[in-house]
């Protein structure tokens, strides 16, 4: 019997909004402006893997400038003072926070990995057996930021129902 998983773009957008409100834009002056462009470029990304009742990845991707700005916001530093290590740490924590909240919406029995950070663009080559099923794509102070959810094709434990069309093979 398969379990239907419902995590739609509105759910992701709500989580993203909470992250902005809590850490990246507590003053509420610089929100993520939606572009709905799933092909927008990225230069760095981080991800967490979810296994168990649902198998896949949650990926946070952005330009390097946006990543520096995010690290600056977390660490109360100017973006140009941020080291590569700081940027990696914050990218990992962002994937962890969003992935953890996604996991909470999945059927019981899902497990979250520690985050992985890659200071290189997000490409489908990194998730060769997964399909993007949902995402939030936007500009933060004119810099691209995206949060996406990828379902592993080998996962027979669940079906995934999202408001977005399945993007398998479209990358």
């Amino acid at each position: 019997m398969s379990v239907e998983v419902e995590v739609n773009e509105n759910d992701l957008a709500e989580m993203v909004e909470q992250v902005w409100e809590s850490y990246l834009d507590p003053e509420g002056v610089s929100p993520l402006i939606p572009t709905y462009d799933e092909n927008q470029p990225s230069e760095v990304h981080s991800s967490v893997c979810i296994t168990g009742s649902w198998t896949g990845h949650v990926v946070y991707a952005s330009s390097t400038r946006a990543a520096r700005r995010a690290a600056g916001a977390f660490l109360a530093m100017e973006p140009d003072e941020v080291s590569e290590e700081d940027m990696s740490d914050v990218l990992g924590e962002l994937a962890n926070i969003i992935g953890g909240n996604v996991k909470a919406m999945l059927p019981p029995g899902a497990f979250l990995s520690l985050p992985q950070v890659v200071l290189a663009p997000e490409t489908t080559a990194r998730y060769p057996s997964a399909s993007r099923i949902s995402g939030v794509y936007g500009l933060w102070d004119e810099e691209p930021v995206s949060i996406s959810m990828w379902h592993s094709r080998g996962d027979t434990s669940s079906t995934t129902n999202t408001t977005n069309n399945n993007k398998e093979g479209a990358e």
Partner: protein
Amino acid sequence: MTPMRAMVIDDSRAMRMILKRIVTKLNFEAVEAGDGKEAVDLLTAMTEVPELALIDWNMPNMNGLEFVMHVRADPRLREMTLVMVTTESEQSQIVRALAAGAHEYVIKPFTEGAMIEKLALLGLVPTGANS
């Protein structure tokens, strides 16, 4: 008056910074640890036990739940107030942490105000410290 001490345990330096900023603002002296094992080592070396620990769940070496169980098994540490600060937001996980001996649970992402409210509920800061 001697300030209270808080131990901030998270494998993310950025998250430790955020938590440290909050507790420092509330006049705590903050000590950082990058995982449960490092926190245990620090506590072993300390002569005075911190009043508060803010603990992430998912960490390498020793996770937050294991740390809570370790603290609760040690009579020297029984007065510590333990607050889980984590993305683990499933009801079953919250119950596990509270059953293991955590006093409170804060789900990431959290605002500074929400964290201060939780600490006020625990009686560690005056009510209204957030205003």
